[in-house]
């Protein structure tokens, strides 16, 4: 990702005020929508063609049906778009509810400087990855049906998940809205919106608890279809617990990149604080991963699947549990004691790989593992997935370069108390 390399002028001057009239607001917005910084950067050159190709593929998909660009079959109706984009993407977005819990509920002020970027990251992840769900719907024009209430399928886990996605997006938007108000220089709006933060946070954490586990509960009825090493009635609990360290690993990973790419926007104080923040997050990751590993062990023993361990899928299971849960857990413990930032990052990347593995094992790899013809996503599904991710990063970058996400809020905010 390129950096604009310069701080916004707006930041130091008095921001425009909503009272000044509409004309200046429009002028300001028009200015903000103009691209900034260098255009010919490696990231842009790679992501643009992928996004354009993805767009073409999406058009084809809506004209000729889902089968035109995916390898989905009658037996495997959910593939990469659900298993990775939605199920894995939402797990990685879990950082937002964990960090808001720590900052607003536990009042751990140390982590205050990363709240905004984490909430932004979570919000965009929900918008884009849950939005990617629309691509996967065969009849997306009926997506409104479970919302407007002419047909509430309340017995469905997916009903719960869909509603929670929707409500949580609103909750996150409210959590983030003071930043938008600061950007627009609207003092009154900021005052009102920041007053709603605690309510939105409490609501958001409750929603997250339920839909992070709900994504796992989706697969409860596919009892015979998922490999027994990954299927248990505890999938919802597993998904919830793992979303904590999945989200925090994402925060570590994303934070490490942001601190390089957007270095100019981050104040000296926050730069210095980063080491301590990473160390704290590493400790939480280690703790939750230990709980998760122990739960997996309990479920494995209760499942009585010893005989399955020595099959191909069994080795795959051991790889996931030992290589991508136990190992990064040990790395987290060790690195948080020695304050080794590089190792914390390495552990975070391993953990993220492990979460991707776990989610794909439940939803794609272990799903119908016994079928003679396995599902392998088509290159077109991959391109669309990448296009969705790149688009999200573009928006992410756009917001960070304009709004006070990483940089300090404008001076007038301090007086507003």
């Amino acid at each position, binding site marked *: 990702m390129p950096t604009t390399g310069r701080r916004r002028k707006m930041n130091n001057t008095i921001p425009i005020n909503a009272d000044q009239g509409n004309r200046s607001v429009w002028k300001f917005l028009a200015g903000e929508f103009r691209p900034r910084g260098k255009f010919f950067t490696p990231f842009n050159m790679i992501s643009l063609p992928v996004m354009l190709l993805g767009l073409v593929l999406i058009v084809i998909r809506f004209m000729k049906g889902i*089968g035109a660009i995916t390898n989905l079959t009658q037996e495997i109706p959910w593939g990469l778009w659900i298993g990775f984009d939605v199920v894995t993407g939402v797990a990685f977005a879990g950082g937002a509810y964990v960090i808001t819990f720590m900052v607003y509920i*536990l009042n751990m002020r140390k982590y205050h400087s990363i709240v905004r970027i984490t909430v932004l990251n979570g919000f965009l992840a929900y918008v884009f990855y849950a939005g990617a769900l629309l691509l996967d719907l065969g009849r997306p024009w009926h997506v409104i049906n479970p919302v407007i209430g002419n047909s509430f399928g309340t017995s469905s886990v997916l009903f719960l998940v869909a509603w929670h996605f929707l409500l949580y997006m609103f909750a996150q938007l409210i959590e983030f809205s003071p930043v938008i108000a600061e950007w627009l220089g609207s003092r009154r709006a900021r005052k009102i919106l920041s007053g709603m933060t605690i309510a939105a946070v409490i609501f958001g954490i409750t929603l997250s608890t*339920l839909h992070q586990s709900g994504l796992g509960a989706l697969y409860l*009825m596919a009892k015979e279809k998922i490999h027994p090493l990954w299927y248990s009635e505890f999938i919802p609990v597993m998904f919830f617990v793992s979303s904590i360290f999945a989200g925090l690993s994402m925060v570590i990973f994303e934070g490490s990149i942001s601190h390089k790419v957007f270095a100019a926007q981050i104040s000296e104080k926050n730069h210095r604080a980063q080491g301590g923040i990473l160390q704290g997050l590493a400790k939480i990751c280690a703790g939750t991963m230990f709980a998760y590993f122990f739960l997996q062990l309990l479920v494995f023993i209760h499942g009585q699947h010893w005989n399955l361990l020595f099959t191909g899928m069994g080795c795959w299971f051991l790889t996931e549990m030992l290589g991508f849960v136990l190992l990064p857990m040990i790395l987290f413990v060790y690195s948080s004691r020695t304050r080794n930032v590089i190792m914390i990052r390495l552990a975070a990347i391993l953990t993220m790989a492990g979460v991707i593995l776990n989610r794909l094992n439940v939803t794609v790899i272990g799903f119908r593992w016994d079928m003679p013809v396995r599902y392998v996503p088509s290159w077109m599904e991959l391109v669309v997935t990448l296009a969705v991710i790149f688009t999200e990063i573009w928006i992410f970058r756009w917001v960070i370069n304009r709004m006070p996400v990483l940089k300090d809020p404008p001076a007038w905010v301090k007086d507003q108390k």
Partner: protein
Amino acid sequence: MGLTRRGFFKTLGVAGATLAIGSEAGAGRLGSTTIEYYGILHDGTRCKGCRGCEFDCAEAHGLPEPVKKVPDIRKTDETRNTVINTYKTSRGEVFIKRQCMHCNEPACVAACLTKAMHKTVVGPVTWDGDKCMGCRYCMVSCPWDMPKFEYHSANPRIQKCDMCYSRLKTGEQPACAFNCPNDALLYGKRRDLIREAHRRIFEKPGLYHDHVYGEHEAGGTGWLYVAPVPFEQLGMNTTLQQASYPALTKGFLYSVPTIFVLVPALLLGIQQATKNDANNGEEEEDE
């Protein structure tokens, strides 16, 4: 065992009335009310594999006419709601008809977030295109993989057997059962069909394998099967659980209201409790 139009509506009326009374009288009575689901009994000893039902089914649902020459074992798909599969067993060739099982407690109906999948009081599980958003969660949940999706359509539908629900509404029988020349398919009340199936097994124990497939599988299904050989030899999944599939998500769904009440209260409590500590500590910019 025919069903007249009048008799049919009478049953419907009775079922409706008992439902209404049952819910008014409270949950205690509800268990004893009688919803009579209808179903079809397939007799593997009588089916000659003529595949006439495939043609009748295609005609009744406006699907393409089945091809004449087919492999022994096929699956239903978006162009055919039913198939007759041929299995070579120790008792010679046995033919088994496959289609949606019309479960008593269907996983697809529990899975559907728009109520597009619907278990009618008569028994068939039907699909409503005006509600369906094409998420295919019904396909993920169905233990028999019966809902089929039109992957190559811009306006895709879910295709599966609907037990000729539109014919049932006019007092007719399902096309396959009505037209079966060998009496291999018997349409009737599920309760009666189970009794009939056990009677056949009891009277000719040498002819039948002693199992009524669908009586307990997945909590009971509308389609019932008797056959001369064990069902695993006929490509039927015999490892399915006996309990209904929606029961698997019940625990999770029941926890939702509890969490919705307890967690916010707990969070608010913690937030209030830690607020003062933070204020005593170092002053920082507040949000």
